[in-house]
């Protein structure tokens, strides 16, 4: 998603399934997973640039909620949830499967 476009709470988003070398703040276990934006945290500097001493353009940061069943095939309770902060450039909007 374009970093400057702020999506609304409740939007379904997918975390990019990429594994670049270097410093990132997106845990591996969330990559490729689908969650829902729980809260918009506002613009924060991009840690992937800060880590190398570069000046950065602030990015929207979201708190995204994932059902445990989306993350782990053997989840203890699939309906339990996990929330994490994800920067906008890691997210794409995911079509709602119930739509259309």
């Amino acid at each position, binding site marked *: 998603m374009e970093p400057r476009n702020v999506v609304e709470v409740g939007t379904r988003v997918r975390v990019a399934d990429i594994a670049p070398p270097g410093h990132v703040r997106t845990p591996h*276990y969330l990559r490729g997973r689908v969650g829902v934006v729980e809260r918009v945290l506002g613009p924060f500097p991009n840690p992937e640039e800060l880590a190398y001493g570069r000046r950065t353009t602030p990015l929207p940061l979201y708190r995204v909620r994932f059902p445990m069943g989306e*993350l782990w095939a053997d*989840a*203890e309770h699939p309906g*339990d949830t*996990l*929330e*994490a902060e994800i920067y906008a450039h890691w997210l794409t909007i995911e079509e709602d499967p119930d739509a259309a």
Partner: protein
Amino acid sequence: MPHDGHDPLSPSGHPYRPDQDEPLTYWQCMEIAIRELLVEKGVTTDAAIRAQVQTMDDRGPAQGARVVARAWADPDFHHRLRSDGSAACRELGIEVGPMKLIAVSNTPDLHNVVVCTLCSCYPRNLLGLPPDWYKSREYRSRTVREPRAVLREFGTTLPEGVAVRVHDSTADMRYLVVPMRPDGTEGWTEGALAACVTRDAMIGVAQAAHPKSDGI
């Protein structure tokens, strides 16, 4: 790695915590050198370093417990704490620092627990420095996958029907769990309420409980 002739692990398998009287390690030597260079270059002063260490020593779970006790005693404060944690703490004279605080409240239906899988992010201005287990590979690996098993290890078994929500502190937020107020504390002062709030309860691996009475 330095080779200074000392086994880095104790017989129990735990790292030593060498201090003043132990043989100087490579890393301690580096700390002294960096500290002196920073002072000589005018980045800081010995007094400022002492003050920073003192500030850290003064911080501990008591700060967070005050915040939780106020939230229990004052629903309006609890509401403000949930909408802007940093601002609400400032009302109590507690500066959370550059990171923003998100307070997450346990309810009869939901139990929150906090972890930082990527490093060891922790609301240190509210709770002090994190305990070793919070920084351990085991806690960081397992809490996002089997939180209920981890909670059971800490002696926390949730009633049927309570959902678990794990907060992975991945970026610029810091999390404080507001545990459930224990039963039988109606009318208690904030000071008495704060004594029910442990560090572990504010991380979410335990529940708040009446303070243990010694010898009874």
